[in-house]
């Protein structure tokens, strides 16, 4: 057990070390004045002036329209896949509803997959659709966050930066260099990177094994750096080719944390409020450690059913023990629990074990992390979500002490609060609304793989994952039906843009305000007290909204499991 704690401590220590390095680099990328040669060529092709200022509306429109064009391009390639070259396995094109779902999924940084990669996508699609959309959705998220931070920093101005310059620089200076280096480390550890599609092996017992390979490492790198999460293979990072060693597992987790944690540092630097950045990072870390300390014992303790069948699940020197259904030997309980918490905290959605087979409490942790959606959160948007809750916190505290709430030296007024509430409420509305719809939709329950409360957990997990732009699944649910493809596709689009755009509007609105000097009545927001209040508001608002739904799924299932009731 102590070695497991050491692994967790190592993860957090390395993450903290990378915050400063990556945060400094990110700040330089977002505040740069110069243009690199490939960037200048790009601006010329696009016909844009990279130094032209944009207000939040123009920035938001450019972001949404360019995302729409990229989604459309991805959709077209998926529909034409059968006629495009370079696929020895001749995989067919995706159906219209599936291609819509896939394109929506990857442009919104969700990476929900209704298909299984090795049987459904050619190597060309894995590169020109999946890797492409993974990179640009991450860049859009970081760009949106950059505009948001600039809006908070501005005084009596409208300029929040230039979308094309942000987007281009993030790709050339941050994502591509980091991903190229990381993908080579991945190959060294055993992740394939080739244009070949498959190899036939003759096993020691004489059977034939078709081993599907492809450009996996380059996809894995951006998948985790960009908190995307969609796998090359059907089982994602549980596949030995996607995550061959405990070291790649650790690197995956560090990669997922890299940008969301560095953004808190970049925020502190760009606003000259470094303590505020650390206060936000502290909120992330405290919540993450809290959730991990629920996840790990639940999985380590395992399933009482195993013990009743005289199956030995006691951890020891000879075996990791615990609930090993759906888990891989090389990760055991510690590396799996950490990955479950990281991938849903940073809303990546990559999985190194099957979440459907986690214990009820072990499965509730990732579900609840996605419902909160701001413990680290996806690249860019997670930070924006955290700030929306920070504004909510100063508002609630302002109500209690009877003062006009202020945040970062700006007065928070009715317009900002309405927009914040829109962003905060769109999330549960979308999750619970679609879950309720699917629960009564004729035939929708035929997709469940498990009966009883676990079937309901599969359903709410799907819409939570879609709305939170996570992409992990209780994968027993057969979501490749027109109903699920369409509704989950809509949930992903709503979850992305109904939180991003209102918060950009908040930033645009705050940018035009003058700065008010701090007084005795100002609530300091860079203190441990505020961090605690913030966590309290996040957990209470998240908990109260979703608790009834959780009671119907994982909570009742936990009671059934201890009572040895099966479905």
């Amino acid at each position, binding site marked *: 057990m102590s070695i497991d704690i050491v692994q967790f401590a190592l993860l957090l220590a390395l993450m903290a070390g990378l915050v400063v390095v990556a945060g400094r680099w990110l700040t330089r990328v977002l505040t740069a004045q110069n243009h690199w040669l490939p960037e200048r060529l790009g601006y010329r092709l696009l016909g844009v002036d990279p130094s032209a200022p944009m207000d939040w509306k123009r920035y938001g429109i450019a972001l949404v329209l360019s995302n729409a064009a990229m989604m459309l391009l991805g959709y077209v390639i998926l529909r034409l896949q059968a006629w495009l070259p370079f696929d020895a396995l001749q995989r067919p094109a995706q159906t219209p509803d599936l291609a819509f779902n896939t394109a929506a999924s990857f442009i919104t940084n969700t990476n929900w997959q209704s298909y299984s990669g090795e049987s459904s996508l050619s190597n060309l699609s894995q590169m020109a659709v999946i890797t492409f959309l993974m990179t640009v959705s991450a860049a859009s998220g970081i760009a949106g966050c950059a505009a948001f931070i600039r809006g908070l920093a501005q005084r009596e101005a409208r300029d929040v930066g230039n979308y094309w310059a942000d987007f281009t620089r993030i790709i050339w200076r941050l994502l591509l260099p980091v991903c190229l280096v990381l993908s*080579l480390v991945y190959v060294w550890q055993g992740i394939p990177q080739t244009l070949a599609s498959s190899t036939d092996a003759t*096993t020691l017992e004489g059977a034939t094994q078709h*081993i599907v390979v492809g450009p996996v490492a380059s996809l894995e790198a951006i998948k985790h750096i960009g908190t995307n999460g969609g796998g090359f293979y059907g089982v994602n990072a549980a596949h030995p080719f996607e995550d061959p060693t405990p070291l790649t597992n650790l690197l995956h987790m560090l990669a997922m944390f890299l940008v969301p944690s560095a953004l808190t540092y970049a925020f502190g630097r760009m606003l000259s409020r470094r303590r505020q950045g650390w206060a936000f990072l502290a909120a992330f870390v405290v919540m993450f450690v809290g959730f991990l300390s629920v996840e790990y014992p639940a999985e380590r303790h395992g399933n009482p059913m195993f013990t009743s069948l005289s*199956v030995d699940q006691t951890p020891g020197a000879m*075996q990791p023990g*615990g609930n090993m*259904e759906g888990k891989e030997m090389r990760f055991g309980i510690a590396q799996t629990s950490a990955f479950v918490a990281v991938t849903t905290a940073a809303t990546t959605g990559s999985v190194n074990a099957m979440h*459907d087979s986690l214990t009820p409490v072990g499965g509730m942790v990732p579900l609840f992390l996605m419902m909160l959606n701001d413990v680290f959160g996806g690249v860019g948007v997670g930070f924006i979500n955290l700030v929306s809750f920070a504004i909510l916190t100063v508002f609630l505290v302002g109500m209690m002490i009877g003062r006009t709430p202020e945040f970062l030296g700006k007065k928070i007024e009715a317009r900002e609060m309405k927009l914040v509430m829109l962003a905060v409420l769109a999330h549960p509305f979308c999750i619970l609304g679609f879950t309720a719809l699917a629960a009564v939709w004729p035939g929708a329950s035929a997709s469940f793989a498990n009966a009883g409360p676990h079937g309901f957990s599969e359903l709410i997990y799907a819409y939570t994952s879609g709305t939170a732009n996570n992409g992990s699944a209780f994968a027993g649910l057969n979501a490749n039906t027109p109903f699920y493809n369409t509704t989950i596709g809509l949930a992903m689009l709503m979850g992305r843009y109904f939180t991003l755009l209102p918060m950009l509007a908040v930033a645009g609105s705050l940018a035009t305000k003058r700065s008010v000097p701090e007084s005795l009545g100002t609530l300091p927001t860079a203190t441990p007290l505020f961090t605690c209040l913030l966590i309290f508001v996040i957990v209470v608002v998240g908990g109260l909204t979703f608790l009834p739904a959780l009671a119907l799924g994982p909570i009742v299932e936990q009671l059934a499991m201890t009572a040895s009731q099966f479905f």
Partner: protein
Amino acid sequence: MSLSLVRPVLVSAVLFMAITGLAYPLAATGLATTLFPRQSSGSLLRHGDTVIGSSVIGQDFHTPHYFHPRPSMTGDLPYNAAASGASNLGPTSAKLRDTVRERAEAFRKENHLAADAPVPVDAVTASGSGLDPDISLANAHAQAARVATARHLAVDKVDALIDRQALGRQWGVLGEPRINVLALNLALDSASIRTLP
């Protein structure tokens, strides 16, 4: 305002598809095949010209003189490396309970264990990928007697081979101690050749 966005919106889609969807993965492929030719093509193992598997992908063994891997749920046949998959059964699933019970009984029978002997959990649970290359040391030692009998070897020799093939935690800290089934069986084959008359 929106009309001026038409060109950058359309051009950026195609341009960045070419940069991030083609140039980046192709550059990575070029570098990877030069620097790490073995790993980049899938860490394939060969006997002469024949590919016999990949060192990171599990393969199926069911004959008594080889060590057996974990249960696999890759569609119709186990360890199908073209269709990774898991059971996705939840902890209160009656089907999971029945499957685990059957596997435990089968494991005890083929390894000549007592009817209530404890079975290592990894031997009766399906992995996440269906392609898990490893088993626990407890699982390997539980199979040692069967393999030794089938190969007319002393059990302590097989146990010693298991200990020699055991993989520790990576860098002493990361992951779990385990044993690669394919590597173990390959070692077994070469050891048999040396020790048998």
